[in-house]
């Protein structure tokens, strides 16, 4: 390929600019982490599912929270009605977190938590759970998603306006750099951007642009880039276009490494590494002939592995219908195990390197991303672009285009617009969440409020309010709130009083 310099543009695996992978041995040294995202019902229900997954050979945990937890409402809040434990686990306080990890050694397992606006609080609950088991903060490893920018852009689970949200994030970066060195503080996520309908190039560009914004915020807050950058990680989607996805991961590594070294002056080589988790594309799954989703997911997972992912979630075949059943999630996990142990693809590193198509596609993805970076810059940066609705409109337009392509059959979706079955009947089991979960959880919060030391709770919440209004790091006081069993909703309420709430102007 013209103008392709091997050492400059690709490099050996584990060498700058890491196009071929972040480690010199990749899966020959160690497989990716098999991390299935899971959570439903009460903390007790989810704890049982975690033991099931660990018993079946899963190697890391990944927590899905319910919508009230994600939005900062306790289970007994009126806005939580009908949503408790439905699409994730309900966690209201440290007490729930303790039950959630009952019988699990937090020094031995790493945990990823998909939580954003209230990330500081759920991290505090987790750290205090470990503390209660005698595990030090420095022994615990894991990830909080903590990527608020993509919430404004795509996933739309925000609480506070951008400015105080970014302050909370830089507080977490600083606190973890000092006290929780094994924690991945932000999982900069393209997954949700893609699920909301973006193209692969948009996913790549918007995610990296968010990453740059966090690095710039950390530097602006006076934190040395090399103390926090090695703990930033990424989260990408694995969609249907096999080679395009592989090119996307390769381009992402190259762009990040160059930018970190050359623009942000990072000197520690681990600051240059773009390490990422991948989830197969939920939006590509079909309710029609759901068993076909096993096959879709397998190809997507293979693209993530050939693209050099550090950890992987494979979707279950029934996820367009409900939360996954045990059977479905076991097949999903087995899909990863098959790729790792049977196909032999893990014996080699970046085997597609040097293929004209892959290298050209990698460069094309990189160039498209650079073009978006310029546009975002012109708009005044990521937050200004969010306020102008730039990302939201770009994604909305791409989603509508995709839908039209499907309806006009320019894009074939097997079982949906071609190769359909007439009179199809659902033949797989569906997981149901009993309404009793909500009643039980409400009762549990009520009891907690009765039993704890409420004077102490009031004092800590007052201290939280003062700290939020001042310049000091919020994490120590949030940990103190957690330790005396303040609920998530109580902590968020105090922060809302100081920071206000974000509203998005509705448009489509």
């Amino acid at each position, binding site marked *: 390929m013209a103008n392709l310099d091997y050492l400059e543009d690709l490099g050996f695996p584990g060498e700058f600019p890491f196009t071929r992978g972040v480690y010199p041995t990749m899966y020959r040294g160690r497989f990716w982490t098999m991390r299935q995202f899971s959570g439903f019902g009460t903390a007790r229900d989810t704890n049982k599912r975690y033991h099931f997954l660990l018993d079946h050979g899963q190697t890391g945990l990944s927590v899905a929270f319910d919508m009230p937890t994600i939005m900062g*409402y306790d289970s007994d809040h009126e806005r939580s009605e009908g949503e408790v434990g*439905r699409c994730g686990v309900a966690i209201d306080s440290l007490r729930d977190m303790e039950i959630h990890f009952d019988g699990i050694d937090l020094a031995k397992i790493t945990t990823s938590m998909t939580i954003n606006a209230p990330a500081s609080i759920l991290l505090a609950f987790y750290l205090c759970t470990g503390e209660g088991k005698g595990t030090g903060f420095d022994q615990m490893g894991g990830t909080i998603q903590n990527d608020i920018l993509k919430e404004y852009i795509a996933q739309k*689970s925000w609480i506070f306006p951008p400015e105080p949200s970014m302050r909370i994030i830089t507080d977490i970066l600083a606190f973890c750099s000092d006290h929780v060195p094994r924690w991945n503080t932000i999982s900069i996520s393209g997954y949700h951007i893609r699920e909301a309908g973006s193209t692969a190039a948009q996913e790549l560009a918007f995610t990296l642009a968010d990453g740059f914004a966090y690095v710039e915020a950390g530097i602006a807050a006076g934190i040395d880039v090399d103390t926090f950058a090695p703990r930033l990680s990424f989260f990408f989607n694995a969609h249907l276009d096999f080679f395009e996805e592989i090119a996307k991961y390769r381009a992402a590594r190259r762009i990040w490494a160059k930018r970190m070294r050359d623009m942000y002056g990072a000197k520690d080589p681990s600051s240059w590494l773009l390490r990422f988790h991948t989830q197969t594309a939920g939006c590509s799954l079909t309710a029609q002939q759901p068993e076909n989703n096993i096959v879709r997911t397998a190809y997507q997972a293979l693209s993530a592995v050939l693209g050099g992912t550090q950890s992987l979630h494979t979707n279950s075949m029934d996820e367009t219908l409900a939360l996954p059943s045990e059977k479905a999630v076991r097949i999903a996990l087995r899909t990863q195990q098959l790729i790792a142990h049977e196909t032999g693809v893990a014996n080699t590193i970046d085997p597609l390197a040097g293929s004209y198509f892959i290298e050209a596609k990698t460069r094309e993805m990189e160039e498209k991303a650079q073009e978006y970076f310029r546009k975002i810059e012109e708009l005044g940066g990521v937050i200004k672009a969010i306020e102008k609705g730039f990302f939201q409109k770009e994604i*909305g337009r791409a989603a509508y285009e995709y839908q039209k392509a499907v*309806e006009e059959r320019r894009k074939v979706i097997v079982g949906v617009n071609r190769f359909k079955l007439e009179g199809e009947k659902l033949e797989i089991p569906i997981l149901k*969440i009993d309404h009793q979960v909500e009643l039980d959880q409400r009762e549990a919060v009520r009891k907690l409020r009765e039993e704890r030391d409420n004077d102490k709770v009031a004092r800590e919440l007052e201290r939280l309010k003062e700290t939020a209004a001042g310049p000091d790091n919020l994490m120590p006081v949030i940990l103190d709130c957690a330790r005396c069993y303040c609920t998530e909703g109580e902590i968020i309420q105090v922060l809302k009083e100081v920071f206000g709430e974000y509203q998005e102007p*509705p*448009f489509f």
Partner: protein
Amino acid sequence: MGKKIRVLVAKPGLDGHDRGAKVVANALRDAGMEVVYTGLHQTPEMIAESAIQEDVDVIGLSILSGAHLTMFPRLVELLAERGADHIKIIGGGIIPDEDIARLEEMGVSRLFGPGTDTRDIIEFIRKSCADSVS
């Protein structure tokens, strides 16, 4: 030509998955309907109020969070209380078949699952509004 069909596309509850709602809103608008989109995180009370204020013929709810058995019945009830039960309610999202049957019995006109062609939604709305508007 009578007046245009007016549709309120609404996202009740706490989840922010608005891809489907926006795709449907765009498709209905391109089909010549007047579309109002509520934005996210709406309560059934807010949706009923907007529907009445905007004098719509149809409300389309998008729910992917599993809260459908709470949200739809409440909206049906609220519209009835306020004498607005001429407004038809349709919806879409992740809703199991047996819940669809229950909700349709409770007064929801029609629920559309994943993989629905937007032309089917358009046709359904046109037919069900044929008596009142063109």
